[in-house]
């Protein structure tokens, strides 16, 4: 197993990069799913969201890049900032916000295009079409996603001809193509077999050198293995948030302890 050099500092002594603040509440229509959240996420570390199904982990994650905007009838109070800029700032375009944030989904979803075109998609939509630049980005991203050696000879084949694990790593490569500051991952390994999962976890460990990573996971061991800090949610509330080792070794809250020891969830 991977032995990550874990951060051991306690809650207050880091510069927050992403801040969920001012008692963040969130509603789908009239149903409230997030309650009074306040949470500081450090730069260039892995932060894991854990908790039982339906507790709002994905909702919070998708709030960070405003993917929830696609859904009709959502409401929120409170604020989220990334590097001191509010994501709800009216002068900030959602599109430029999303360009700063890469996202990896639960079910790998490569575009029905070639491997190459998948990666350069975010550049092409920004009107960047210079071949040399695109080639460079493809190589950098694929190397970053530890996929380069496997696919460098078939960059122009359909992405859909890859294995599931490769497709998910391609999605990661696609997410980092634009050099984002943050990568959001929503249960990135839940559709993968153990070997592919291992590769992705290894990759996450590499990626945190350059990116701030927020990962939702269902798998306690995974959270323990890959994350520096862990937030435990229950029924839309943040129950406990601390350095990962503390959450798993000496949780302060009884619910957290019950959950991480597998007694419910």
């Amino acid at each position: 197993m991977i032995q990550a050099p874990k951060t051991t500092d306690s809650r207050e002594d880091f510069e927050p990069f992403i801040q969920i603040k001012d008692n963040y509440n969130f509603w789908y229509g009239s149903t409230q799913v997030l309650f009074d959240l306040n949470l500081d996420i450090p730069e260039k570390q892995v932060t894991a969201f854990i908790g039982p199904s339906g507790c709002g982990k994905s909702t919070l994650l998708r709030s960070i890049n405003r993917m929830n905007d696609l859904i009709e009838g959502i409401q929120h109070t409170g604020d989220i900032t990334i590097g001191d800029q509010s994501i709800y700032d009216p002068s900030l375009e959602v599109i430029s916000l999303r360009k700063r944030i890469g996202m990896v989904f639960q079910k790998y979803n490569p575009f029905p295009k070639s491997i190459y075109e998948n990666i350069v998609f975010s550049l092409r939509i920004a009107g960047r079409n210079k071949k040399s630049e695109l080639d460079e980005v493809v190589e950098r991203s694929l190397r970053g996603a530890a996929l380069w050696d496997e696919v460098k000879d078939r960059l122009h084949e359909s992405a859909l001809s890859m294995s599931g694990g490769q497709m998910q790593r391609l999605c990661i490569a696609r997410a980092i193509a634009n050099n984002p500051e943050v990568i959001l991952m929503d249960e990135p390994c839940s559709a993968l077999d153990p070997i592919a999962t291992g590769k992705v976890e290894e990759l996450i460990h590499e990626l945190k050198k350059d990116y701030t990573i927020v990962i939702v996971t269902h798998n306690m061991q995974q959270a323990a293995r890959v994350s520096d800090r862990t937030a435990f949610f229950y029924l839309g509330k943040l129950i406990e948030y601390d350095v990962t080792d503390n959450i798993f070794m000496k949780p302060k809250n009884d619910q957290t302890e019950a959950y991480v020891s597998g007694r419910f969830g």
Partner: protein
Amino acid sequence: MPKSQHSFTSIRPKGEALVWFTGMGLSVGILLIIGLLGIILKNGLSMFWPDTIYEVQLVEGSTAGPRNGQNFAGAIALERHKRLQEATNAGLTSEFQFFAGNKDAYGQMYHYVDADQIVTDATGEPLFTPASGILQLERIEFGDALGFPLEIQLADGTTITEPEALKAALFKTIEESNERLETYTKIEKKQIGRINSKMESIRLEQRALREELGEAAAETSPQIQELNEQQAALQAQYTELAAEARELRERRHQDSLLLRLATGEERRISFENITQAHFPNEMSLPGKVGFFLKQIWRFMSEAPREANTEGGIFPAIFGTFVMTLLMSLAVMPFGVVAAIYLREYATQGVIVRAVRISVNNLAGVPSIVYGVFGLGFFVYVLGGSIDELFFSHKLPTATFGTGGVLWASLTLALMTVPVVIVATEEALSAVPRGMREAALACGASKWQAIQRIVLPASAPGILTGLILAMARGAGEVAPLMLVGVVKLAPSLPLDGEFPFVHLDRKFMHLGFHIYDLAFQSPDSDAAKPMVFATTLLLIVLVIVLNLSAITIRNHLRKKYKGDTF
């Protein structure tokens, strides 16, 4: 336990019966389709097969057949039982329909003869002996001729009567004559046509100048003078070409073939009237197959003659094809754009639901209604305005203000647009949500996500809609009769004459051609095989169009689905 067992056994047979019933439903459907295709195939293809020509001997005192009771030669077109009007002895007897050709001599090509009017052999069956050495001529006028060749007379005065030499000369002369036809048609249609259109534009120019300068001033104006000179030069060219064409025509007219009909009389037929000759009773099987294929090809590649009952149907095939293509070009973008707005941008609510229901119901509106709309809107309103704005110099002759291939295509596009909208909406909603989210998460705007990801991924589904629309459009007849289809179009909607695509032209259409042959033909017996052959071709055309669209769709499907895991 016994109770449940009881119910088990009592339910089972019931279920089996229903399975059997569903199977029967399917079989009936398949049988119907096979029957339909079989009948059309058999009747359609038999038109091209060289039938054996028999000598028919009539009994003493019979008045049946051509020329009231003379023995004749013909192919058996039909044999059927006949119920006698007077309930005399047997009640039932057979009746034959013969194809005896020679419409110019006999008045009609098909003759009904009762079986008991024909001399029988020892067993009591009607006696038919193949007419040896009989020649079948395909002619431009009066349909086929059947008879025994006696002599060929050429324009230079030679006559050929010796049988073998005559046979050779026959085929050679037909070939030469066809070449001459080709040459002078080219002269008349292309070269003279070009001169005519130049002269016409000069005439219009002159008219415009006269109007501009006034009648008196125009006479002395140098521009008019020059135009007059040009016109004179063209006129001279015209005279020269016309003389050349006339000479070729004359030559074709003078070569002739003398034929003795089976009824005894002799007829002289000019080669200008003959398109093809064969000796049906002397052909080998491969020869017959070759002839059969050649006839099919001629049917598909030649223009119709004799009020459409002879010749080929190429203009109708081409017209159907061009119209369907134009329709697809119009309906695709229109339908897809409408569906994108409905599905992706419109706020889903009462209004959108009402629009969607209306679109679905439009698919059920009878096609003739679209025809009437097309006539009232496209032809009269749009076409009329276009004429006034751009073709006012040609008025009162309508250019776009009358039916034409453009208006017909647009009418059918309107008729089939609901099919495309419904299919596109379905295809759009079938694109996985993850795909859109991935695009948006990459920083794409909504339109970019639709244009670059959603639309390509739903292309196979959209094409399915187009296939359905094409199948419906290609076979439609009723609305076309109002907006531009004609029995005989003088020229194709697409040809080598500038500007190549003539959207204002009237066109021929296979569906309408079938209708015309079946109901408007002066000779229904002669038209019958044509009806089947044309129907066969319409089916083939629709199948070809669909197959090509399906091939494209499957190709796209493979491209966009791939094999996961």
